């Protein structure tokens, strides 16, 4: 077969002497590299980069692309990642020269449109979240978490308090404790209650004047709204602790309720989740943070200011300083801005509503086969307990691989840690009933296979470019670059 499915790299296809670009014209005298850079600096051994024609390069990457599952092709129920449809016009708009060709050090009077867009987006996100001020600078969700914690630290320090602890539920994303540690805090774990929500009594017993913040995901990672959120915020505030909302699951709340109204002091957004900017195979994301007014003085600099329609950049002395080399992932902001315009108040009202309905509808269809550890109704996602698979000699990972044989991506698996053999399913609002019905059929079919032909599931996938990939060998042998020799 001519089609390349061998995993052969660019380096193996390389034929020295070839290249995929033409020589650039010389309209200035070419004195040669030796005249510019002394021998002691010169590179002695050229990097072993591939040497291929343009057509060969395009074909190589086109063939690679055909091996990816992606949203435009099929259902992608990866819980916690909000894999919703990415509108195409956003791609056109983000590529406009008036955005893509801007240099971050251009004078403010030459980037008025960009600054206006950022200013408007900040205000839209503030309105959607009920926060008072927003910084767009963090480049991804985890970066937003870290930035928010630096803001919280600066706030406490401004009051003469060097608080050391951050409280984090055991169901939290791994980024929460990792961000808290990098922000210099000691992490204290809060238990989940039997209903899957925060154990408020455990939380209260761990609150003290040394607690800087409580980080809470809402809805939480088992897809449940934290019903006692007001009581939680009040308890934290009574000892001066700030309440942080991990906005990874914000999609569930859009148009239904606002984190700011729930009592949160600070949060992050994932524009690549809730505001449908493409995930890009692992980024670029964009992780703005929203804060209540008492924290706004500490937001990263520079801040965009609107002076009667003239947009300027300010560096408040109270700011924690910049957290990115420029303004953050600006072209992602362009896409999110276009999305909010496309949705308007009427469309946004349907986002959370339909995301919640789709999750509950899908859960209803498959719950006879596999149960959740915690009772619903759920918000935008639900987490199945895959323990039943163990009775058939199988694991959640087997189930996930087999699902993919039917043209869908696997749910998020083995997370959150409080659910055994977890399988986290988030359909999002952009999936049709037909897709949900079909996925439910597939799910139940695979479950039947688990009972009738467990070996088939254990050896899955069977219909993908590769059979089961040996990740144990990958970790043991650690081949991280092409072995040239």
């Amino acid at each position, binding site marked *: 077969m001519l089609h390349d499915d061998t995993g052969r790299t660019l380096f193996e296809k390389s034929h020295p002497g070839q290249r995929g670009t033409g020589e650039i014209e010389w309209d200035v005298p070419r004195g040669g*590299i030796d005249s510019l850079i002394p021998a002691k600096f010169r590179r002695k051994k050229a990097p072993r980069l591939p040497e291929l024609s343009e057509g060969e390069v395009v074909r190589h990457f086109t063939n690679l692309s055909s091996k990816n599952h992606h949203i435009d092709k099929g259902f992608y129920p990866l819980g916690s990642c909000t894999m919703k449809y990415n509108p195409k016009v956003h791609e056109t708009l983000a590529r406009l020269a008036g955005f893509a060709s801007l240099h*971050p050090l251009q004078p403010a009077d030459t980037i008025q449109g960009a600054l206006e867009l950022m200013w408007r987006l900040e205000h839209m996100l503030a309105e959607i979240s009920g926060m008072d001020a927003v910084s767009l600078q963090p480049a991804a969700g985890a970066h937003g978490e870290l930035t928010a914690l630096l803001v919280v630290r600066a706030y406490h320090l401004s009051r003469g308090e060097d608080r050391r602890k951050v409280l984090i539920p055991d169901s939290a994303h791994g980024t929460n404790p990792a961000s808290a540690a990098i922000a210099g805090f000691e992490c204290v774990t809060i238990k989940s209650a039997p209903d899957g929500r925060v154990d408020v009594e455990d939380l209260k017993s761990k609150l003290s004047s040394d607690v800087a913040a409580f980080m809470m995901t809402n809805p939480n990672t088992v897809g449940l709204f934290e019903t006692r959120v007001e009581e939680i915020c009040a308890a934290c505030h009574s000892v001066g602790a700030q309440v942080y909302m991990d906005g990874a699951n914000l999609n569930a709340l859009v148009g239904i309720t606002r984190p700011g109204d729930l009592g949160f002091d600070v949060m992050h957004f994932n524009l690549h989740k809730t505001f*449908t900017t493409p995930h890009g195979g692992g980024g670029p994301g964009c992780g703005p943070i929203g804060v209540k007014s008492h924290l706004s003085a500490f937001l990263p600099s520079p801040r965009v200011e609107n002076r009667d329609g003239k947009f300027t950049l300010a560096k408040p002395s109270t700011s924690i300083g910049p957290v990115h080399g420029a303004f953050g992932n600006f072209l992602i902001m362009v896409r999110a801005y276009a999305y909010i315009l496309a949705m308007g108040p009427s469309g946004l009202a349907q986002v959370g509503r339909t995301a919640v309905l789709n999750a509950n509808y899908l859960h209803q269809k498959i719950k006879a086969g596999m149960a959740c550890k915690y009772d619903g109704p759920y918000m935008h996602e639900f987490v199945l307990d895959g323990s039943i698979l163990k009775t058939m000699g199988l694991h959640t990972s087997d189930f996930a691989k087999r699902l993919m044989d039917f043209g869908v991506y696997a749910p998020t698996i083995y997370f959150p840690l409080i659910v055994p053999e977890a399988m986290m399913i988030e359909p999002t609002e952009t999936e049709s009933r037909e897709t949900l019905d079909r996925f439910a059929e597939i799910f139940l079919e695979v479950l039947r296979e688990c009972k009738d032909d467990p070996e088939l599931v254990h050896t899955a996938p069977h219909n993908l470019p590769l059979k089961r990939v040996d990740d144990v060998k990958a970790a043991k042998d650690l081949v991280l670059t092409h072995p040239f020799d």
Partner: protein
Amino acid sequence: MSHRFIPLTSVEEKEMLQASGVERFEDLIQAIPQHLRLARPLDVPPAMSEMALSREVRRLAQKNKGLSELVSFLGMGWSKHFIPAAVDTIVSRSEFTTAYTPYQAEASQGSLQQIFEYQTMVAEIAGCEVSNASLYDGATALVEGLIMASACTKNRKGFALASSLNPRYREVAQTYSSSNGWTFHDVAWTSGEGALDRKAAEKVLTENVGKIAALVVQTPNTFGLLEDLEGLADLCKAAGAVLLVVSDPLSNLLVDPPGVFGADIVVGEMHALGVPTSLGGPALGYLATWKKHLRQMPGRVVGRTLDAEGKRAYCLTAQTREQHIRREKATSNICSNQGLMTVAASVYMALQGPKGLEEVAEQCATRLAYVRNGLAKAGIKPLFAGVPFQEQAFRLPAGSRARVEAACRTAGLLPGVWLSDLMPNVPTETILVCTSETHTKQDLDLLVSILSSAGGAA
């Protein structure tokens, strides 16, 4: 009722609610106390058609003056380069844009192999053994490098930072420093060459025994000048520290890369290889290092392995460093990185190959030399005598800035970065000029003529 992105009619909604065992949608959200629910529509502009929102977004784009309209010599970490059409053709493929982090290897071989190839090319350019799957940008890559250096040296918290480091990178590092308890020791540049003062570096390392995690040097430095890295790794080793180099990958086509000199960690900004300047983001931070430091490396990494039938396969690996496994003990909090930008860089590097990249680098350096020679005729000299790559600081006569700026505004030209606005201890009339292959002779002549007349002796 229905929206073009939400495939749900009101009839379907009603039926699905019933199938979900409830009468009304509100029954599904009983967990949200009634008084906390939003009782009004959100105050954002009314929903727009694709035509109307395109008009609005284009209005904002047109309010900017981009590098396609202005002749710009701005640099300092970002430079404009030509990007072949094939790069965006591949980057635009929804197979790459609408996939996510390749958690399930069997359905993600495209992204995985692409990242593996990217890692290989980055390691080759930096002269190291391994690279991760990307970081947000150059400035945050430096911060990740500092965290890593600390971990490599049993949590030492001191850093010897070259004062000629990109001032914005330095500022970002400063933001992170208070929470990490980091101490920065400035290492001055030499007055004649504008290069790292080795004696000063040695002094910091020897006067703070057991405290310095890394010596941090940038090459080319903020004055655009190459640093001689020879012997720095030994200097660090003797002090139990690591050598962390911020390096411009394009320069490394012409200049021996940091890995050759034993740099432990190499970080920097890679957007110049296939990613538009984009107001500085999405950018592409990179980090390259050695296998011996792998356990301290931040971020995702892809490894090669086999599938059950012995076919070559790729998957995410060495994950026991990462936040989703190690939580507060992870080497970094990073999760989403700059995946799609690595596709752009991979395609760009594959198209150019070593010869094409070297030629682009030579074009950049040659065009700078052309400007330097032109300015010399008007008596305008570089601030320092060191060896530049594509960027160089020039000293204009005192009091000339206003005239230069006025002339540039008229001509639609951005002459460069006024260094003293961003760095202490730099003369006020110093301008940092960055050239690339995209500048025509006409552009260069215009710059030389404006700086020579307006910036010449008053």
